[in-house]
């Protein structure tokens, strides 16, 4: 059981990064469907940086930078030019997959240097790591996993306990009201879209640098789309994102351990999406204000139309 929970957290970590990235973006009122593309760009940049320099820190930073740059394209299109968000996001996915394959041709058959791999081995946190079960699952993992839930907590505090977070949520709900209260909507949107993209890039890098430390094209294999579903599943709450991501990570691998029960593996593949639909149905029946998406989500903001 513990081994399953450990594997679950590892499988959920790339989802957690991507989910947090998309969550931050959506909080600013922008729906970015380019998660998959940004993850792939982050994966190839992280792998490239790690492979050429042998430096684990540069691998992470390279991934974040590349993901952020990809998001900048999206931000320019949707915030400055006010292009359709759905179309821009989809374009970013296709663009990202292409860039990743193209740049990745340089790394075919290449393996991450030992310096980087050894930087991401499991490191036990003293004391906390000795707690039964929880210690092994949460506090005996690699740095990337620790970073994942730390960032989630930081984003949670930022959103709900700081003035900036309040302003951000205001923009997501009603950009014109936020604008009239003196918040610089454009700057906020740009910053959060870019940071969101950086997180997505890091999620991709986890796959390429830590999980499978050898260049494999299209390594995300659809995880970006699961992350978009996850944002809905966790009701735009970064704390819930931790549990949601690990849960979805668990759902994606539980099939391997339950196959002797003769349940079809396809059923488990469909499970994350089924769960998302169920959550959507429940939250739309309850119509709770806290569970609903930011009101301004997907709408381009024109100051002149106030």
């Amino acid at each position, binding site marked *: 059981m513990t081994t399953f929970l450990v594997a679950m957290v590892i499988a959920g970590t790339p989802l957690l990064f991507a989910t947090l990235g998309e969550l931050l973006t959506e909080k600013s009122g922008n729906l970015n469907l380019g998660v998959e593309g940004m993850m792939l760009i982050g994966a190839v940049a992280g792998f490239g940086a790690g492979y050429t320099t042998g430096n684990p820190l540069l691998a992470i930073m390279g991934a974040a930078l590349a993901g952020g740059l990809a998001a900048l394209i999206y931000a320019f299109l949707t915030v400055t030019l006010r292009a359709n968000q759905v179309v821009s996001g989809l374009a970013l996915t296709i663009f990202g997959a292409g860039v990743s394959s193209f740049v990745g041709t340089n790394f*075919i*058959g290449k393996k991450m240097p030992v310096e980087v791999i050894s930087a991401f081995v499991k490191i036990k946190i003293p004391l906390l790591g000795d707690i039964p079960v929880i210690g092994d699952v949460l506090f005996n993992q690699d740095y990337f996993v620790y970073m994942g839930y730390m960032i989630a907590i930081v984003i949670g505090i930022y959103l709900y306990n700081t003035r900036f977070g309040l302003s951000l949520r205001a923009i997501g709900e009603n950009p014109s009201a936020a604008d009239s209260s003196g918040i610089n909507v454009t700057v906020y949107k740009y910053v959060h879209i870019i940071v969101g993209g950086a997180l997505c890039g890091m999620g991709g890098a986890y796959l390429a640098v830590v999980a499978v430390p*050898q260049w494999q094209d299209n390594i995300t294999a659809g995880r970006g789309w699961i992350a978009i579903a996850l944002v809905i599943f966790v009701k735009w709450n970064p704390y819930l994102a931790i549990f949601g991501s690990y849960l979805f990570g668990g759902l994606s691998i539980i099939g391997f351990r339950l196959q002797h029960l003769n349940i079809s593996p396809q059923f488990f593949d469909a499970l994350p999406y089924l769960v998302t639909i169920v959550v959507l149905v429940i939250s739309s029946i309850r119509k709770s204000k806290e569970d609903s998406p930011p009101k301004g989500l997907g709408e381009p903001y024109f100051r002149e139309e106030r």
Partner: protein
Amino acid sequence: MKKVLSLVLAVVLVLSLAACDKVTKPEDVTVGFIFVGPIGDGGWTYAHNEGRLYLEQELGVKTIYKESVLEDQTVEQEMRNMIDQGATIIFATSFGYMDYMEKLSSEFPDVAFYHCSGYKTTDNMSNYFGRIYEARYLSGIVAAMKTETNKIGYVAAFPIPEVIRGINAFTLGAQSVNPDVEVEVVWTSTWYDPAKEKDAAIALLDGGADVIAQHQDTAGPQQAAEERGAYSIGYNTDMSAMAPGSYMTAPIWNWGPYYVEQVQSVIDEAFVSTSYWGGMNDGIVELAPLTANAPEGAQAAVDTAKAAILDGSLVVFAGPIMNQAGEVAVADGASMADGDMLGMMWFVKGVIGSVE
């Protein structure tokens, strides 16, 4: 004047016809390849691409290719694009392309179509595949000599005859040197998801397996074995660089010679529509060289079995073979016909898992 003109035209026509008669030069031939994955997968598509490069080098023909083509109407469009670009020979390298290729083959009778891993042929469409199960049998020998827990994990793709045949051959090979070995199977329902396939391998290792074999086109399971200090059998290509600490050997493809032979036959205008299922005799499938991780004595055991397969004294699916329930599936003295092997939907005794 009109007569002169028609005479000149007739002469021109005759001359141009004569020009057509000239032997096709290889550098004027364009060969198209449709790949199901990226050429950087280090597996299935990588092996086909190596074959493509070999073809270019040997014959000097021009090749074009398209990666990650979906197994739906997309492939039809891609093949039309290739024909527009002058391709007169097209290789489509995944099962799901079969029906689309069959349809196009009647529309373009002058193009030679080749479909990999299917069963349909038309006047100008051949299918081809290799008896990779022979090499899997050999890899099973290596795995069984290595395991200490007598449990080998097998990360399997989809429950289709090709994969099941591979698992059965692997198990029979393993049992040939160690009758107590069991092979536990998990299905990932993927051909290409490195992280997921790694997770599947970890589940098997957590369940007590100490050697991992795989059918997907990525190195994910190899890395799981390496991380856990276990051992592994790869697939498609030599994967020693990807998991140097765990990789022992792999059943591998060698498509190049087949591609050269077929393209040459089209250039010589000697195309014949065939169903080709070549084995180790043809060199289209092989066992990759054993690494230092392989157990002592494995090389000798593999060499003996390989020689027996090559001279025909060892047939992988020759009876007696029991199924999972312990009933006789192939009687003593009999061996399975190709048709039965191509439709194999049951596991041999010693496999843990179900074909559902």
